[in-house]
C-alpha cells in the first residue's frame, strides 16, 4: 500500500535525515588517555544516511544483524548523539531539541528487561506514564485504555514476570503509545516471538496502530515477509548505508518478474539475506496468551524473574 504517492498529495515530513553519520571511537584505556595516545580507530554503523519519511507512513529498515539499524533508531530517539549530519523528527532537531523530540515519539524495543518484572503490568505503565507527565486519574484512564487496546486488561494486575513473550511485547507497544506519539519507533518488534505470535503482532500493528490511529511507524526488521506485509516503503540497509529505498512492490519489480525481496537484498548488497524466524504463518498469535492464563494461571512460556 503506497498511501502518499497517489494524487500528488505531499504530506508533512515526520522524519528527515541528511548525511546522518555516527562513528564510535574504539575506546581507549585510562593509561592511553593519560599518555594522550591517539584513538585506535572507529566503526561507523550509520554512514551518511539520507531519509525522508512522511507522516502516516510505515517505513521499514531491513538489514542483517550489525547493519546499524538499532544505532540509527537510537539516534532518532535521542539516545545516541550523531557525529555528523542532521536529523529531524516531527520537525525537531534530535540534538538541539531533544526534549521536544522525546515528547513526540514512542519507542518499542524487544528488550523485555526494560520493565520492572516485580511490578504488575498496570503499575509499570502508570510509572512510565508519570515520566510522560500523566498522573493520577489521567494516567489511570490512559493506562486502562491502552491495556484494552493491546488486549491485556485481563492480566493487568499480574506481575510482569508472569507474562509470556507475546504479552511482554504488547506491553512494550502499550508503553510506546503512552504519550500518544506522532511517530512510533519499533526495533525488531517480533524478534523474540514465535511465528504465530509474530503474525498476531503484525496484524495488531496494521489494524490498531496504522489503520485506526494513523501513526507514522519506523520499524527495523530482520524479516523479509514482515517488511513486505507492513511497510509502505522499505530501505535496504547494510554496513551503515542505505542501499536502496522504495515500495516493496517497486523494489521487486525493478529486478523483473518473480523477484523476491531477498533477491533485491542480494542485488544491492552482494550478500545473501539470512532471516531470523519465520513469517507469514497464520496462527492465533496473542489470543493464545489469554487462553493460557484462563487455564490455571499459566502464561505459556514463563521466564525467571529479575
Amino acid at each position, binding site marked *: 500500500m503506497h498511501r502518499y504517492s497517489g494524487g500528488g498529495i505531499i504530506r508533512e515530513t515526520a522524519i528527515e535525515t541528511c548525511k546522518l553519520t555516527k562513528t564510535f*571511537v574504539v575506546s581507549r584505556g585510562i593509561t592511553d588517555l593519560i599518555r594522550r595516545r591517539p584513538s585506535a580507530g572507529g566503526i561507523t554503523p550509520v554512514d551518511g544516511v539520507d531519509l525522508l519519511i512522511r507522516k502516516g507512513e510505515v517505513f521499514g529498515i531491513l538489514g542483517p544483524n550489525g547493519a546499524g539499524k538499532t*544505532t540509527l533508531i537510537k539516534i532518532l530517539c535521542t539516545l545516541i*548523539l550523531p557525529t555528523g549530519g542532521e536529523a529531524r523528527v516531527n520537525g525537531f532537531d534530535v540534538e538541539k531539541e531533544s526534549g521536544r523530540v522525546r515528547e513526540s515519539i514512542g519507542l518499542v524495543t524487544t528488550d523485555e528487561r526494560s520493565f*520492572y518484572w516485580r511490578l504488575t503490568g498496570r503499575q509499570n505503565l502508570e510509572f512510565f506514564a508519570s*515520566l*510522560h*507527565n500523566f498522573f493520577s486519574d489521567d494516567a489511570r484512564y490512559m493506562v486502562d485504555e491502552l491495556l484494552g487496546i493491546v488486549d491485556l486488561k485481563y492480566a493487568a494486575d499480574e506481575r510482569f514476570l508472569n507474562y509470556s513473550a507475546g504479552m511482554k511485547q504488547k506491553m512494550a507497544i502499550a508503553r510506546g503509545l503512552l504519550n500518544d506519539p506522532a511517530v512510533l519507533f519499533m526495533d525488531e518488534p517480533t524478534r523474540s516471538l514465535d511465528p504465530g505470535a509474530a503474525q498476531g503482532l503484525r496484524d495488531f500493528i496494521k489494524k490498531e496502530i496504522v489503520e485506526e490511529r494513523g501513526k507514522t511507524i519506523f520499524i527495523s526488521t530482520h524479516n523479509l515477509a514482515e517488511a513486505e506485509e507492513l511497510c509502505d516503503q522499505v530501505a535496504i540497509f547494510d554496513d551503515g548505508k542505505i542501499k536502496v529505498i522504495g515500495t516493496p512492490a517497486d523494489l521487486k519489480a525493478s529486478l523483473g518478474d518473480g523477484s523476491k525481496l531477498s533477491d533485491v537484498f542480494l542485488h544491492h548488497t552482494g550478500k545473501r539475506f539470512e532471516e531470523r524466524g519465520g513469517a507469514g504463518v497464520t496462527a492465533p498469535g496473542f489470543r493464545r496468551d489469554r487462553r493460557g492464563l484462563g487455564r490455571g494461571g499459566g502464561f505459556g512460556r514463563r521466564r525467571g524473574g529479575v
Partner: protein
Amino acid sequence: MIAIYRKALSFVRRSYVLQMSYKFEFFLRLFFMFFNILTYYFVAKLIGTAGMKYLEPYGGDYFSFVLIGIAFSGYLMVSLRGFSESVRDEQMMGTLEAMLVTPTDASAIITLSTLWSFIFASFRVLLGVSLAGANVLAALIILVLTIVCFSSIGILSASFIMIFKRGDPINMLFMSTSELFGGVFFPISVLPAWLQTVSHLLPMTYSLNGMRHALLQGYTLRELTPEIGTLVLFSAILVPLSLLAFRYAVRKAKMEGTLVHY
C-alpha cells in the same frame, strides 16, 4: 513544580512496591537497623558520663549523639552510593533507556530514583531520638540542606559511574573521610587541632553539628546561622557543579553509545 512532586511520589511508590515484593529482605533490613541501634545503646551505657567533657555542647547523651551521627552517615552513604547504584541498577535492569526516551530529564530520573533510600535512612532518627525540646523547623531546614549537599556529591559520583562504569574516586574520598573527620561517632573536638582543619572542609561536619544542636538542644535558627550558612554555601557550589558534571557525563555516554553499558 507540581509535576516534579507528583513524579517524586511515583518514584517512591515504585520503589516501595519493588521493596515490598522482597518482604523478607525488607524486614531483615529493619531488624538489623534496630540491632545496630541497640549496639550503640549499650556502647552509650558503657561510656556513661566519661565523655561528658566533649559531649556537653550536645546535651551530654552519647546515645542520641551517635544516633544522629549514624543516621547522617546513612544519608551520606545513600547519596554517594544511591545515585551511582541507581544508575547502575537501571542499566542492569534495562529500564534506563526506557526512562531516558521520555521527556523527563536524566538528572531528575537519577535524583528521584534515590528518594526511597533517603526515606528508609530516616527511620533511624525517628526510631531513637526524642523530639521533645527540639527545634523541628531548624532540623528540617538542616536536613533539606544536608540532602541537597550530599545529593550533589552523589550526582558527581554518578557522573563518574556513567563514564568509567566502575571506580569512583568521589565515593571513596567522601566515604572514607566523612566518618572519621565529620564527627559521626565522636565530636570533632576529640581530634587534634590540625586534623580538625580537615573536618571543616566537609559538609558532614556542619550537618551533624547543626542537627545535633537543633534536635538535642533546641537551638534557634539565629544560633544555627553558621552551620546553615555554610551548608547554603556548599550547596551553591556543589549543585551547579554536579549538574554540569552529570550533563557532561550523559552527553559523553550518548556520544560513545555507552548509556546502557555497565
